[in-house]
């Protein structure tokens, strides 16, 4: 299990290759990558603030819960903070499991929790200045299925 909270760019494909090489006995690997959308060219970038200390703890707790709920061979969470450009990867989740149902469910669970329970705040920076991204009711709603 690896959790990385970092400002540095990362390559989701290279991470997937390394993650897959490290899993033993898994039949299924699911990955999710979140990218900065360019919103039709109107967005010049994004700035992500986080709560050092709590962030790592909160994510580790989510991964622990995923491991308790599903049969997983391994899990990976990478989440960036600081300034990001359109098209760049914001974050990534990967899960490996003997069976696909567990890998998919755990990846979606981690995503839903990262959206609404990990202390990150996104600010979109465009031509007209910056604007904090508002939390979506749908994201809070999504937690109820778990």
């Amino acid at each position: 299990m690896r959790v990385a909270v970092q400002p540095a760019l990362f390559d989701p494909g290279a991470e997937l290759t390394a993650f897959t090489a490290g899993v033993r006995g898994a039949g299924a690997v699911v990955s999710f990558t979140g990218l900065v959308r360019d919103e039709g060219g109107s967005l010049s970038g994004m700035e992500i603030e986080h709560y050092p200390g709590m962030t790592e703890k909160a994510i580790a707790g989510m991964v622990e819960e995923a491991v308790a709920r599903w049969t997983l061979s391994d899990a990976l969470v990478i989440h960036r903070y600081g300034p990001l450009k359109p098209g760049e990867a914001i974050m990534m989740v990967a899960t490996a499991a003997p069976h696909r149902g567990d890998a998919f469910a755990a990846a979606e669970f981690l995503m839903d929790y990262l959206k609404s329970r990990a202390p990150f705040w996104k600010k979109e920076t465009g031509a007209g200045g910056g604007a904090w991204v508002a939390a979506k009711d749908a994201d809070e709603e999504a937690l109820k299925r778990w």
Partner: protein
Amino acid sequence: MIDVLYFAWVRERIGLPREKVETGAATVADLIDELRGREDRYAAAFADISALRVALDQELSSFDAPLSGVREVAFFPPMTGG
């Protein structure tokens, strides 16, 4: 003395990321009342509690939680990670 941290637009409205606060507040809600009384920028940041979240010692908590033994309180808007 409690460390009080602010993130995102709460930090921007109050104008600083963290401060030490001398308080005898029994609950988070009491602490918010004290802070609101300080200056307009605090009143603005804490105007709508439903738009805020609070963490006590880096665990999400609620506004009626007691502050006894707590060393770090953080106020921030709903999270938007992922």
